[in-house]
């Protein structure tokens, strides 16, 4: 048995388990209904992006928080390690299993929502709009994958599933609710100015600090906003993300390349952290 096969078998096993779990259908239903309500009921797509950016990370965390810890606590990990495979095969397999499940949820949901929209509204099907929706799906997937892989990381560090989930929730709350107001406060301390003074110095400092927030990069590439979380400020730019059909995709890639790279790099960095953490784990 090659390592490649071992990874695929573990990924397939993880994917099968996720499909079988009632939480998969629950998550998919929540995802779809929320998107459906916001897509058809909201006048602005930034509201849809906000709901995805703020609330959906918890669904992604739910996919990965028990990835390793469940195997560890049920002692099946010990049995698994008696087979000729390595720890990195296990973590890679888990990663692919979670990634495929998340991809299935995101893209099937988006396709069904888009299809319902066409069916209900009767609007014209345009390839440009469909392609931008798929690009939006890719960035949504990468953004949520960051949280799913972080949950996988906590599952390698924590002793219990509750502990892993709690860490995930703490990070989610901090990233999606606390970080925005914190950055406003930090910007005020650094610049000595209030947000209400509306100075360029304050906003440029805030924009710089927002680079540490995944939701900032998601907000930039999807709707061209500085931030989507509640209790913070958003600066609407001239370019409204990849959904702005006034600009070509190639132009938007050039415009948002830094945000795109960070969204691609974050899951990889967290996966590497999970590797290191799992390899150093005393099982």
């Amino acid at each position, binding site marked *: 048995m090659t390592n490649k096969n071992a990874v695929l078998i573990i990924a397939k096993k993880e994917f099968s388990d996720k*499909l079988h779990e009632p939480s998969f259908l629950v998550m998919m239903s929540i995802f779809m209904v929320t998107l459906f309500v916001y897509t058809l009921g909201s006048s602005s797509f930034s509201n849809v992006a906000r709901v995805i950016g703020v609330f959906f990370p918890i669904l992604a965390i739910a996919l990965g928080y028990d990835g390793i810890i469940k195997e560890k606590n049920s002692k099946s990990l010990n049995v698994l390690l008696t087979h000729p495979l390595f720890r990195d095969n296990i973590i890679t397999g888990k990663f692919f299993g979670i990634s495929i499940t998340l991809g299935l949820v995101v893209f099937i949901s988006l396709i069904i929502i888009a299809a319902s929209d066409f069916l209900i*509204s*009767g609007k014209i099907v345009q390839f440009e709009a469909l392609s931008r929706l798929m690009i939006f799906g890719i960035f949504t997937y990468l953004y949520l994958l960051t949280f799913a892989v972080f949950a996988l990381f906590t599952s390698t560090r924590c002793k219990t599933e509750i502990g892993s989930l709690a860490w995930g929730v703490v990070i989610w709350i901090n990233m999606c609710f606390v970080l925005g107001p914190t950055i406003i406060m930090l910007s005020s301390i650094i610049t000595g100015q209030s947000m209400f003074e509306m100075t360029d110095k304050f906003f440029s400092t805030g924009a710089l600090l927002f680079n540490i927030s995944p939701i900032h990069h998601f907000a930039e590439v999807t709707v061209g906003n500085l931030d989507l979380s509640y209790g913070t400020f958003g600066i609407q730019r001239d370019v409204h993300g990849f959904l702005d059909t006034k600009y070509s995709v190639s132009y938007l890639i050039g415009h948002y390349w830094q945000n795109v790279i960070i969204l691609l790099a974050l899951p990889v960095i967290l996966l590497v952290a999970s590797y290191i953490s799992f390899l150093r784990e005393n099982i």
Partner: protein
Amino acid sequence: MCQNNSVKALLLVFFVLLSPASSIASADWGTVVATSETTGKVAISGDIIEFPITVQRGHNSSEKAWIGLSVSSAPENWDVGFYEENGQILFLNFPENENKKRNVILRVKTPSEANDGVYSVWVNFVPDEGDISIQEFVVKIDSDADINMQLYSAIPGLETSPAEPVEFIVTIENNYDHRIKVNLDVLEKSEDWDIQLLEIENKKYRITKQSLEKNSKQDFIVRVNPPIDTVDGSYTITVAVTPENGPQSAKETLELEINGNIETNEALVLIPEEVNLILSPGSDSEIYVTIKNTGIQQLENVELRMQDVSGISTDVRMFGAIDKLDSGESKEIPVQISVRADASSGSKDILMRAISDTTNSEDGTIAIVVERSESSGFFGVGLILISICVLGLIIYKFGRR
């Protein structure tokens, strides 16, 4: 005695016939002769008077000939000279075999300070061979002479509403045989009314003087701006042209009927590129709406305003208002019309209006028919079925049994 008287009479006739001074319009004989049908004119001081003179060979000859033209006597300070097409002349040559008549003008410029009276100008026509002809031309300066000009309008009566300017076209007709310069004035008008006498070509410049060729006509515009508080009724405006050097004027009275209930012409007109659009939910279209200033005055701060209706939004793509829109000028304004995805089917009218600081257009409409795309329904159903099939297949293939 009777015989003596007859002899004296014959001698007198003989003497008169032979005398150069008695040749009134032409010489009895000469290689070239000059004749003039008009030898006396009435003018006012300062006028330029022209006497046409015809010069031709005295008899058929194939030889070359010439005639000298000179002024022998003229009142002091009077400019007198002979002119042909190319300017002032002293001699006229007739080449060999050339028998065509030549037209010459005796131009007399009277001084503006000349007193009323009868003045004579004596001229000599001296052919190369033959008799010298001496001719008298008489000019009567009469400051009370009737002006030989006309001032009239083909449409001397108009109707308008208060604050709505109107324009009369008035014609000056110069019946003099010479160029004349006249002053243009408004002799009579209602108080506080703005009357402008404008050049016909571009309506840009106000004119105060007009120079006219002999026997010519010239139009000009009388623009009348009745104030907004003008009471309904009939008003007269009298315009006059007065030659620079004469007291007499030619006048024309124009009548303007002010009627507050008259339907006014809109100065701003909206011309949409499309008045009917068929759009599907979620789609959009860009059209151009032309704003035209059909009035006669420049309009300032002109902008296009559109009223959104349920499910349809409009975006007027212009940077603020148009600062100035000249009379007759038009601008194209792009307008993005977007139909929301949840817009209901049916026809909806978008109202639009152009406004400026002083006026606004009539409301225009663009009818938007929202039609659901049949193909998108099939597409939606197809996508849902495919998604469900894919999901089912994945669960069937990978789901734990």
